[in-house]
């Protein structure tokens, strides 16, 4: 077997291959609907949403049928490979949750109660990234299935730059290593052999380009080396220890998320485009409103916090107004807690990216939903522009920059110009194409309609008041966007 690509690219390609098929199926389903009303109805149908609970239940049904005992698939509980996202009968969920709780403890050394397992299987509670990974181990998922679960939970895929992710990729590759305590043991050995990273590494982590590929190639060589398990483990630890400077740092007992330098730089370039469309923001002082021009930081890029504020305000996601009203939420009929939490979380997330970029502490990578959200804000504002406006000329000039993102933005602007002349029904085709082009420029997987956040973005493009969708699409399932996360166990 000849592996020439890094594990990061290969994982992505594998997911892409699986998703290409599923996306094609989902797109075909979407294209069956002709009017915007029909499309909206389809996108708001919960049975079409690929939630984490659905993915886990379907995986269990296919890979661990022995857990169901006397319950027969099709007769006692729905066949999720044939049907959509429908719930199990309570008796089946109770049985499976109890079994999983026992397995979590006896096999993996994890304490996950039966009650919590029920919540995860029924999508009654969101799941943090580390917990999603642990659940993957308990379910003995392979790398692809685990990656899909992460994406369904709204998290990014495994990154080889994160030592924990690196070890999880190693363990998930083979059924005999899909044991959480085994992965923990390897991580402890790495931490011990590398010393205390918190003390040793400098506060600002300096990444070297090309190292992501190096780490990925190193992992592949170990995985497919045919070495005895003992030797493979030893080689893994030795490799990781030797490459420790390329891994993210340990902070507060956790390793920072993996990152991509390319994504960061392109993200900042994208903010230039958005700054043209959202040149000012409103600020309040003593009930007086004033409009401030979007500041530009020393590095020449627009201030990220102010840009997000400008975009939310322009699209009437009035975060600041809600923030001041939050203390009297119960009395304020207009206050919607879910929207507030959504916006707040995104601000916090953007703040983290801002700190990452300014201080380089690598605590927050650019995520797929960042690009989707930024893409949405670009699309809605661009469509309002007149072809002869100064902003249009400025955007076109930016797109002549010659970079990969610039080429993508040029294509997007051409399609949006065509879309503005199309009717509402075919507009969604252009929007999907634009968002997929933007995602591809950041090396993210394309839109996948069954995912909640993707669905929310598409629906937002079809409705004049997208903020109203937040409680319906996202918060109803108490996904990560709302910030209501399961505590790590």
């Amino acid at each position, binding site marked *: *077997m000849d592996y020439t690509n890094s594990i990061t690219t290969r994982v992505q390609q594998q997911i892409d291959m699986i998703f290409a098929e599923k996306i094609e199926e989902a797109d075909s389903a979407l294209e069956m609907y002709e009017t915007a009303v029909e499309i909206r109805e389809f996108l708001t149908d919960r049975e079409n949403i690929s939630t984490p609970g659905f993915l886990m239940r379907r995986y*269990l049904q296919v*890979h*661990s049928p*022995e*857990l169901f005992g006397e319950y027969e698939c099709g007769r006692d509980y729905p066949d999720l490979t044939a049907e959509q996202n429908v719930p199990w009968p309570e008796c089946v969920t109770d049985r499976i949750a109890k*079994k999983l709780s026992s*397995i979590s403890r*006896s*096999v993996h050394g994890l304490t996950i109660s039966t009650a919590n397992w029920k919540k995860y299987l029924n999508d009654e509670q969101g799941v943090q990234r580390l917990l999603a990974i642990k659940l993957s181990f*308990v*379910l*003995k998922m392979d790398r692809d299935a685990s990656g899909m679960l992460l994406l369904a939970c709204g998290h990014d895929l495994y990154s080889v730059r994160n030592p924990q992710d690196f070890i999880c990729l190693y363990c998930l590759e*083979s*059924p*005999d*290593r899909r044991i959480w305590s085994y992965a923990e043991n390897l991580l402890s050995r790495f931490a011990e052999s590398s010393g205390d990273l918190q003390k040793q590494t400098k506060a600002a982590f300096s990444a070297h380009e090309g190292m992501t590929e190096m780490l990925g190639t190193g992992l592949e060589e170990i995985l*497919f080396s*045919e*070495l*005895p*398990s*003992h*030797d493979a483990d030893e080689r893994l630890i030795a490799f990781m220890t030797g490459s420790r400077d390329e891994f993210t740092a340990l902070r507060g007992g956790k390793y920072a998320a993996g990152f991509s330098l390319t994504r960061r730089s392109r993200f900042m370039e994208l903010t230039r485009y958005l700054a043209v469309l959202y040149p000012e923001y409103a600020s309040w002082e003593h009930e007086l409103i004033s409009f401030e021009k979007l500041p530009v930081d020393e590095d020449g890029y627009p201030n990220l916090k102010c840009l997000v504020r400008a975009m939310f305000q322009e699209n009437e996601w009035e975060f600041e107004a809600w923030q001041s009203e939050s203390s009297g939420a119960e009395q304020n009929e207009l206050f919607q807690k879910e929207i507030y939490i959504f916006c707040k979380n995104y601000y916090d997330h953007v703040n983290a990216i801002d700190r990452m970029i300014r201080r380089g502490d690598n605590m927050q990578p650019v995520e797929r939903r960042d690009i989707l959200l930024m893409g949405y804000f670009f699309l809605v504002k661009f469509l309002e522009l007149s072809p002869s406006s100064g902003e249009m000329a400025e955007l076109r000039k930016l797109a002549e920059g010659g970079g990969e993102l610039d080429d993508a933005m040029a294509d997007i602007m051409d399609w949006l110009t065509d879309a503005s002349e199309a009717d509402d029904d075919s507009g969604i085709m252009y929007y999907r194409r634009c968002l997929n082009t933007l995602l591809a420029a950041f090396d993210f997987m394309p839109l996948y309609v069954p995912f909640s956040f993707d669905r929310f973005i598409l629906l937002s493009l079809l409705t004049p008041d997208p903020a109203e969708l937040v409680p319906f699409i996202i918060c109803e399932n108490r996904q990560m966007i709302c910030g209501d996360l399961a505590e790590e166990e």
Partner: protein
Amino acid sequence: MIYANAVSLTGKYHAERGMNSQDRYSVAAGNDCSAAVLCDGAGSFAAGDLAAELVSGTLAAFLCRSFEECFAEKQDVLLRRLVMIVEDTLNDCALEKGLDPGEMACTILASVMHEDGRCLCLHLGDGMILRRRQLGCGLEIISRPANGIDSSSTYLTMNCSLFEHLRLFRWTQEDIEGIFLLTDGSDVTEVTEKPLDDCTCVSLIRNNRIVLIPQRAEQES
């Protein structure tokens, strides 16, 4: 010189029910190498013991006879060849005896060791393969058990994608003293109580006859 040894204990579960162990092993020697294959027939399948008997014999002979090819061949090509050998053998037998091929279920633990230190191991399902490098050193794991979601399920011949789940290990190690194949139910460090499951240990030992033997428990009357 490479010696093969084997010891088998009937588990409590089978002993209480008067059932025989379904562990089967075969050894072969030739071409300056020795091979041992240990298979655990799946008790819940009608022909698990028959499958274990056939696979152990067929593989042991093949690995010894074709050691050089097996060691040099590319991984995917070798795996395909091994899959064909195992599945053709089991399918032919099932056809001859009028059995459902899916009943020919067993695990596989195989090892072939050359005098010059080259080793090859195969592993399907649970059980464990260990090695010891020098006399007096501890045991190291070559291959761990591969179970399903819990320890009650594993991968078996004719019941999973053999190409995907048959694990292959190849390496050269001159200081290796012994390789040990253990079926599920064995404890490599200490067996002081009668095991619930049958456990069998087959070993290939180089240069001496000392072998790790699980402490044999007294038969319960």
